[in-house]
């Protein structure tokens, strides 16, 4: 249960693009073809290893429906990573990416790592958005890009882990202020040298220093 870092993620994107399925595939390693509409947000968690360090991912899967937009906005601040998901078989979900990105950039902290994900790559025959288009969009907006399939699990692990790697690198570079929990990053209890109940207060500078070296 102990971890070196804890990262908070959010998953955003239009309704029906497979956000909940991506989370379920990542946390439970299963696919549920018929999934209920997410109401508000749902929580999931998993431990991963990067650079032989245990990293805990806490993921908030948000509702894509417009009605929940104002609620889900509350989660932007305080997330270290975001998975922005569209459906490669539905062009309009790709077209809405700019709106999502603007929303995310406006409400989140500037260092939040955003990973662009084209989901449902298993449905090649119904593809409406070319992979190159996704790549181009990601390049233009400075995002990491990946096509995934929550059904076949293709690239699902990679999507979550690569996002974590990016965050981890930013920590190493000292870009993230890990003292501020509003950034969505926490240092694990055993890594904090002082009182475990006050992880952010004084002890974190030491840990950060360790990370830099």
């Amino acid at each position, binding site marked *: 249960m102990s971890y070196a870092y804890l990262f908070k993620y959010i998953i955003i994107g239009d309704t029906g693009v497979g956000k909940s399925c991506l989370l379920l595939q990542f946390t439970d390693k299963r696919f549920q073809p018929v999934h209920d509409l997410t109401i508000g947000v749902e*929580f999931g968690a998993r431990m991963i290893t990067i650079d032989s360090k245990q990293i805990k991912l806490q993921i908030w899967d948000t509702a894509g429906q417009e009605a929940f937009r104002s609620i889900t*906005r509350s989660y932007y601040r305080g997330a270290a990573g975001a998975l922005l998901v569209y459906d490669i078989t539905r062009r309009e979900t790709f077209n809405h990416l700019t709106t999502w990105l603007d929303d995310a950039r406006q409400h989140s902290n500037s260092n939040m790592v955003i990973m662009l994900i084209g989901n449902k790559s298993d449905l090649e025959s119904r593809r409406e958005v070319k992979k190159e288009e996704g790549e181009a969009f990601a390049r233009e907006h400075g995002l990491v890009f990946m096509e995934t399939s929550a059904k076949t699990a293709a690239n699902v692990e990679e999507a979550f882990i690569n996002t974590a790697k990016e965050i981890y690198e930013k920590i190493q570079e000292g870009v993230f202020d890990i003292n501020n929990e509003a950034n969505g990053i926490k240092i694990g209890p055993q890594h904090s040298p002082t009182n475990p109940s006050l*992880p952010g207060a004084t002890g974190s500078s030491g840990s950060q220093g360790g990370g830099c070296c």
Partner: protein
Amino acid sequence: MDYFRSGLKSVLGAQPPDQQITGAETVERLVSRVSTSTLLEDRRDACRALKALSKKYRVEVGAHSMDVLKQVLELDRSDCEIIGYCLDTLCNITSKEPFDDENESPLALNVNIGEQFTEMFIKNTENVTLVLSFLEEYDFRVRWPAVKLLTSLLANKPKEIQDIILVSPLGVSKLMDLLSESREVIRNDALLLLINLTKSNANIQKIVAFENAFDRLFEVITEEGLTEGGIVVEDCLILMLNLLKNNTSNINFFKEGSYIQKIAPMLILPENIEEVGWSPQKVSNMHCVLQLVRTLVSPNNPVQIITACQKGLRNASLLEALCNILMASGVPADILTETINTVGEIIRGNLTNQEYFANVMAPSNPPRPAIVVLLMSMVNEKQPFQLRCAVLYCFECFVYKNEIGQGQIIQTLLPSSLGTSDITTGQLLCGGLFSNDSLSNWFAAVAISHCLIDNPAQKEQLLRVMIATNLGAQAVGLLHQSMMHLQQGNRLQSKIGILMLLAMWLAQCQQAVQVFLNIPGAMAFLTAQTSASECDNNEELLQGICALIMGLCVVFNDNSVQNYSKENLSQLIEKRVGLETYCKKLSEISRHEVYAKAAKQPQILAKHSSELLLEFEFCKFFKTFEGVIINALGVQRDLQNGISELSLSEHENALLLQYKELIRDQDKKLHDLQKALTNSQREKEMLKNELDELRQTNSQLNDQNTLLKAQLATNTTSNHIDNNFSGTQIVPPSAPLLQNNENHEELNNLKKELIDKTEELERLRKDQENLLELLTDQDCKLNVFKNRLREFGEVIEDEDSDVGSNSENEV
């Protein structure tokens, strides 16, 4: 009034001594000053005065000043003092509670003024957002009243405020930041605000949790000294409870965030607890901690969440800590009760935890298993009622889905283990079952019944239990003894307890049914109860369960008891009780209000001991078997294989034989007919084949015929013969071809002959005609000559009459 006026002199200036100025007028004057004054100081003074008046003249201030106050909040936000006055004033006029020195207003009698003003204020949702924005102002004079105003608004219109805050950008975040506030009064008020804000709103609960609420709250709790701390600790725990109750997503987050470990220190009792004692606040805090743990493992949660949390609680040594509290001395009864409930839910349906619990020993001399010590309290009349209920619940949780545990408990009832000197669970349960305390009877009966759930092996084992009632008396079986107790006793609670035990024992256990049916008077008792027509307070429950047991005796009957075979018993129900009455009695159980209460949750919840009649698992059991029994009674007749011939009466047997004969006959007939049908079909097939063959030959002949006709056409000139011939196709195809040809020729010859003859005949006819003509001519000539002769005077004798007559005529 004088006091008030003098206080206002500084603001309003001196008044003429004879004025009769009313509060309303003062307020109006102040309001106009706030809205018209150009100097900030003047506005500020007016606002301060409004604030001062807002308690006593609440209606007036609220009615007149709302708009100007909003205006000030927008325009003067840089001045913390005036904002503070405004917020305070708004807070006062929207307060839910009336003030002590508030002027009685005619309006105030029926309507809640605070609520009215709240409604007016929040009509424009921007106003709430505005107040939220003041939370960011660090100045104490602004931040604190802003928190208080929000609390007041929330108290009046919780749903509306929740919705507004939920959609305000960073609304919840701003409130959450207040938990890190160094000024305790603000932090504590913010805590209360959050408690109200998170009530029954899952979305806000999740956002609050996302905003690191658990970290913040555990920080505060630690700072305040854990459970030794004051009411702030309690508030923190209440907020956590709000966030977790019925919120699976947050429970999952709590578990994944390793917060369970952070509860553990709060459950460790200090060494000197007996000397220090339990302060009321400590009791309250402890209560909340226990509630918190129970929320995680509540039977209402999804199973995977419960299992994961149970595991987490064990791994964090929380189960151990709780068991220590269980066995510690000096723990207040209500804490002990809640601890027992909590332990119960942590072990419920979790084998590892149940095993752990089975091995917990009480520090008594000699050491006894904790479960024995607990059961001793359950069957002890002197123990508090709630505590006894908790023990039963904990026991139920211990045997829930725990086949091994169930077996172990039943084992202690069996004769072999009775020899040991120490008290066993079995002894306690048996003692409780037949004690003079009806509540103990009920508790023990329910406890034993839970050991039998889904466990047919233990139902049979339990049949081996023998009870020696009096010294020297013959030992009787537990089932028998229960029945005797039932027939002798007159206390409803005790009877219902035992009947529930019997019902759950007999179901799916033919052996137990057999033993039961052999108990003299058992059936008579049930029949009498079921067919009884009068029922006063809760008797209908008793009758209903008796009906249920009768039904179970039908369903799980192996027909080994002569007089009470399946058929006999259903006859008994039909004849003595009547199916309709029977079903009605049965349904009385689920229609009773205690059924609805008990079926709601596994925990035994009752204010008073007399309320305890039915119990959760029994309700579940009843739901399963009610339908089964009604089906068995209703459609039994149709299920021939359900009845052996032995169970039928003589008349019916004869009838059965008769029908069997009839069926046999019909069967034979059917067989014969089928045979005949097969033969006919075979014949038909043969004929069909023959016909096909003939058709084939026929068509062959036809072909040949055509061929021949063609040949014939070239050879002969006459076609109509062919036609004639084709008309005679039905001639048996087996006729020799040669003969056919000969016939042809012969026919042709004959025809030719016929033509010749006809021609001859024609010729002769023509000759004859010619001759006749000639004759006529001759005749005419002759007549002419005759006439000439007459002219010449020659007498000519007529040769024939004809001529004679002619001559006569001429004469």
